[in-house]
């Protein structure tokens, strides 16, 4: 229950961090908040000869407004800062809501958005939010920086497209149109636990698109849904969009979308719940998330 010995390097700039990673020939790992990494080190599930601590890099914890109504969130932004950010609450209420489900205060004080995305737990809130909100993940690396769409970033459980000498420096969330409705539903066995399953949804109605462009609407229950994004958490080996459910919502409404989400889910059996139970949750939580999102949506 103690980590194996390792060499510890403090990086004070992004360049120093990337240089240390590159110099290690793929052996070094990044230490950010450490809230997922250190338990794995204590158990010796993960082992590396070198850790590069990026907590000393100044200016990497800012939440900044972007001109399209979105936000650029520095990789070292702690969960507690996201949870209590007025900018997040104002521009991305669905993210504000999701943060209420993230772990416990002592974990939120240390855990970072860059760390959560890099760790890529398919049942974690922030990777799901990145997929839902079409986040761009901005990186720095020995071969230069990249901007990676969240949809391309997560490739398997705990696996991303990050190179060994590449780190996340920021997450950019494009702005939502003002009438975008949202819903976030998660089932966990105890508060703050990883989700057994979760569903997040955003919808726009009456000819507005989610990013504010004008689109043709379709009728449903007196309101016409023009665009919907539904993201599934803990229901696949990565966070994913429920594409069939999104299409079903536009064509046939909430119940059809919920039924389609059950089909979109490809969950695992584990000690927290069977795959069948998780499919059931996919349907129930999608119905709840979409109902809330439709109620909140406005012109």
């Amino acid at each position: 229950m103690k980590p194996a010995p390792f060499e510890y390097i403090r990086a004070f700039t992004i360049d120093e961090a990337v240089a240390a990673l590159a110099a290690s020939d793929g052996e070094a790992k990044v230490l950010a908040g450490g809230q997922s990494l250190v338990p794995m080190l204590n158990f010796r599930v993960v082992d590396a000869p070198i850790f590069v601590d990026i907590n000393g890099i100044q200016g990497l914890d800012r939440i900044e407004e972007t001109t399209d109504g979105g936000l650029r969130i520095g990789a070292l932004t702690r969960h507690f800062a996201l949870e209590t950010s007025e900018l997040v609450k104002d521009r991305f209420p669905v993210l504000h809501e999701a943060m209420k489900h993230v772990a416990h205060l002592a974990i939120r004080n240390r855990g970072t958005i860059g760390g959560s995305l890099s760790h890529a737990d398919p049942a974690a809130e922030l990777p799901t939010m990145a997929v839902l909100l079409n986040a761009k993940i901005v990186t720095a690396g020995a071969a230069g920086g990249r901007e990676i769409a969240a949809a391309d970033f997560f490739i398997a459980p705990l696996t991303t497209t990050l190179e060994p000498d590449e780190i996340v420096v920021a997450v950019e969330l494009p702005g939502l149109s003002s009438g975008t409705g949202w819903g976030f539903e998660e089932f966990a066995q105890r508060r703050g636990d990883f989700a057994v399953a979760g569903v997040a949804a955003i919808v726009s109605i009456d000819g507005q698109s989610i990013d504010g462009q004008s689109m043709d609407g379709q009728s449903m229950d007196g309101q016409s849904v023009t665009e919907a994004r539904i993201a599934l958490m803990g229901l696949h080996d990565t966070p994913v969009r429920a594409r069939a459910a999104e299409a079903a919502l536009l064509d046939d409404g909430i119940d059809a979308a919920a039924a389609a989400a059950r089909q979109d889910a490809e969950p695992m059996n584990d000690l927290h719940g069977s795959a069948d139970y998780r499919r059931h949750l996919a349907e129930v939580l999608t119905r709840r998330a979409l109902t809330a999102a439709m109620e909140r949506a406005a012109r």
Partner: protein
Amino acid sequence: MTAKISITVSVNGENHTAEVEPRLLLADFLRENLDLTGTHVGCEHGICGACTVLMNGDSVRSCLTFAVQADGAKIETVESLGDIDALGPLQEAFRENHALQCGFCTPGMLMTATDMLRKYKLETDDDIRDGLSGNICRCTGYQNIVAAVRSAADKRDAK
């Protein structure tokens, strides 16, 4: 064997300098190097909350933090809250409400509650339960711990 690193950490207002291995957990540094055994080590992987301390004012798991990461930081442990002859207000609230039985989880409960009382309004008992959800107690059923934090929150708000 990896090289030891020199660190200086302020613990409960006193500076300590030591040469430590990078892999030394802050919890073990406090207990083994500084003899501050009030910080308890339970699960050693961030679940139980017994090892919670304050780092620069924020509650953290000392089993998920390396001592080298506390270099230059201000650490507060349960020993900072009061002593047997002069309990702090939160400790007094725990005593009055019989909020402990075996006491193993209590240091973590106290440090978590200290941070919660600073950061959150705690308007409802549900808010308190939510705040304490990262600290596991296997004796009390939590009810008296919630009552103790409620009493401390009410006293805080009466000021």
